[in-house]
């Protein structure tokens, strides 16, 4: 009798294996990668349907959909990795619309030669972030590009959520007199990444703030305060996000530099490199703009949540046809807090 097992295939060599072109070709190798790595990690009833798309129950209310591509280098950094970052980032984009995030999709672009062990770490980190957030990855896609045509792994996630009646948040709703709140310190994510890049090693650990904010946002929405705008200041930092809101709402803003908190290692690294923390990325912070009479109550609600224990009121919205975001400096002078121009580059001397 033959000893051949008709349905046997050797498991993926996660320890030493690498992504090759066959993992994106649509054949047996790709199916194996999906089954043994992705489906095993993300394991949920919608993904288990095994179809080209996920069949989902219709949600009542208005839908929110947001998408975010992640191309971070290094892939693993203090406080997280591209996997959990890609889950948090999209959940936050859905949540700041006032929505409860329900489902995620994930698209992977893998570079030929990428170690399967690293891929497994990333996928498991995504799965853990998704489980902790209670937002399953219900569908996905994988493509492989030739060596040199990618940077290890790129991940695009899309999120869907639902907004309940009575909640209306939008970047164009800020009104003169409104208060601006910030959930905590700024610059942690961007400096964690930068400090880990080649050639820039600081002895003090800077840890990314990457986190899913939908729980915090739910408590803010449930508190009944008149919230007008929520936004997470990611790329371009606090300064750029506030300028976006000012432009959308056709208003100006006046910030108090002394109310904006920066962790000391972040501040030191920024000083060292000549960067301004106002323009450095965050991945677990939010800006809230609310009616002035509700600001103290909102601050209390935010501070009661572990992700916003260092929240503060950082300024107020002004009527200003020019849409300037200004700041009273710690020194007592005034300055414009402008859009980020190009890329933030260190100064020379």
């Amino acid at each position: 009798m033959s000893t051949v097992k008709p349905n046997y295939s050797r498991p993926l060599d996660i320890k030493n294996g690498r992504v090759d072109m066959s993992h994106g070709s649509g054949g047996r190798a790709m199916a194996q990668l999906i089954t043994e790595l992705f489906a095993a990690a993300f394991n949920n009833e919608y993904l288990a349907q095994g179809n080209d798309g996920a069949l989902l129950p219709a949600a009542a209310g208005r839908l929110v959909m947001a998408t975010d591509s992640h191309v971070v280098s290094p892939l693993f950094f203090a406080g997280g990795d591209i996997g959990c970052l890609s889950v948090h980032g999209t959940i936050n984009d859905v949540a700041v619309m006032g929505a409860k995030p329900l489902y995620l999709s994930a698209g992977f672009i893998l570079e030929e030669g990428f170690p399967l062990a690293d891929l497994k770490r990333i996928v498991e980190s995504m799965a853990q972030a998704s489980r902790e957030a209670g937002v399953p990855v219900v569908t996905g896609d994988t493509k492989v590009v030739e060596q040199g045509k990618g940077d290890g792994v790129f991940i695009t996630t899309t999120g869907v959520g639902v907004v309940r009646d009575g909640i209306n948040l939008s970047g164009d709703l800020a009104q003169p007199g409104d208060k601006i709140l910030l959930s905590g310190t700024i610059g942690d994510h961007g400096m964690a990444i930068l400090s880990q890049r080649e050639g820039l090693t600081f002895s003090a650990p800077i840890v990314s703030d990457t986190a899913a904010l939908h729980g915090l946002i739910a408590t803010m929405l449930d508190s009944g305060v008149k919230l007008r705008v929520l936004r997470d200041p990611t790329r371009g930092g606090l300064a750029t996000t506030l300028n976006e809101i000012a432009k959308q709402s056709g208003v100006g803003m006046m910030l108090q530099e002394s109310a904006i908190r920066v962790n000391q290692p972040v501040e030191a690294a920024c000083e060292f490199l000549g960067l301004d923390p106002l323009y450095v990325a965050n991945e677990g912070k939010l800006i809230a703009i609310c009616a002035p009479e509700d600001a103290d109550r909102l601050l209390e609600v935010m501070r009661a949540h572990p992700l916003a224990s260092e929240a503060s009121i950082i300024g107020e919205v002004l009527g200003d046809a020019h849409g300037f975001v200004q700041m009273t400096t710690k020194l007592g002078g005034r300055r414009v807090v402008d859009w980020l121009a190009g890329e933030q580059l260190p100064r020379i001397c």
Partner: protein
Amino acid sequence: MKYVDEFRDGELAKNISANIANEADPKRNYRLMEFCGGHTHAISRYGIADLLPPNVRMIHGPGCPVCVLPIGRVDQAIHLAREHGVILCTYADTVRVPASDNLSLMRAKANGADVRMIYSTQDALKIARENPGREVVFLAIGFETTTPPTAVAIKQAEATGLKNFSILCDHVLTPAAMHAILAVEGGVALDGFVGPAHVSTVIGSKPYEPFADDYGKPVVIAGFEPLDVMQAILMLVRQINDGRAAVENEFTRAVTREGNLKAQELVAEVFELRDMFEWRGLGSVPNSALKLRPKYAAFDAELKFKVDYVEVPDNKACECAAILRGQKRPLECKFLGSVCTPENPVGSCMVSSEGACAAHYSYGRFRETAQ
């Protein structure tokens, strides 16, 4: 943050501000030039102009390394990267300086040139060691602060026999630029200088003495923190009120009269004066820049690749030249904020956050609408 917050204290700033207001004679004007871009940045970033009386006015000087880099020098670097296929390394802000043909090093990079932004000369040496089959050129720019690290890199390259490394030397000298500003016919309407911070840690305070002795202009060397700048302004107001012109040192925690002798020796060993160097804004200034000594000619990219320097005139309507000389303010340029913005700089003063135009545009724009 310790050793930083102390120099940004709002209460102390109020005190110094009150002293300046009390002591400044309302019947006269105090036109003070901060030479360094680092001071320009601090003045704009912390809103120091709001803490000065209207008759004490700061004029932004040419001490911003990328601002004084003429088009022709950036063209040389782009030429090396594109035509000779070198890996061109340089400090951050330099990649955005406008060059000929609507290019910059950043745009040349997007078009396929191998341009790399580095943080230190050691990064450039590392790139050269890791790419033995490629030529690596470091576009060396900056005042006396950045010159010693370039000298160290040259010595290291020589000691380790690194043959694929060379530099385009565009290092310039602060005192020569100050002479060029003061020696202008008719003079510049200036009453004193806030002297350089980091540059002075290297060259000391002595080289500024001729500006006080021969030109009668007070100089107060100041650190880059906002309280340093304010204290220096107060010291200048006092000198002017007393009719004195001396070199005073507010930045005693880092600057001595003699400076860093070891760094000076190293620079003298590796570099010598160029007879003439073109500055953006100041034109050709004799003895104002450095080149490698013949002993180190093998590391001179201009010789190695036989690239000649071609002067390229600035856009005629751009006021960078007059602004760098302190003759005009950024607001007097009709390009400011329309054709010329930080995203699309026409002149180099809009490139670096240390540049007078970029500092005004990014931090002080609200003042125009208030006036």
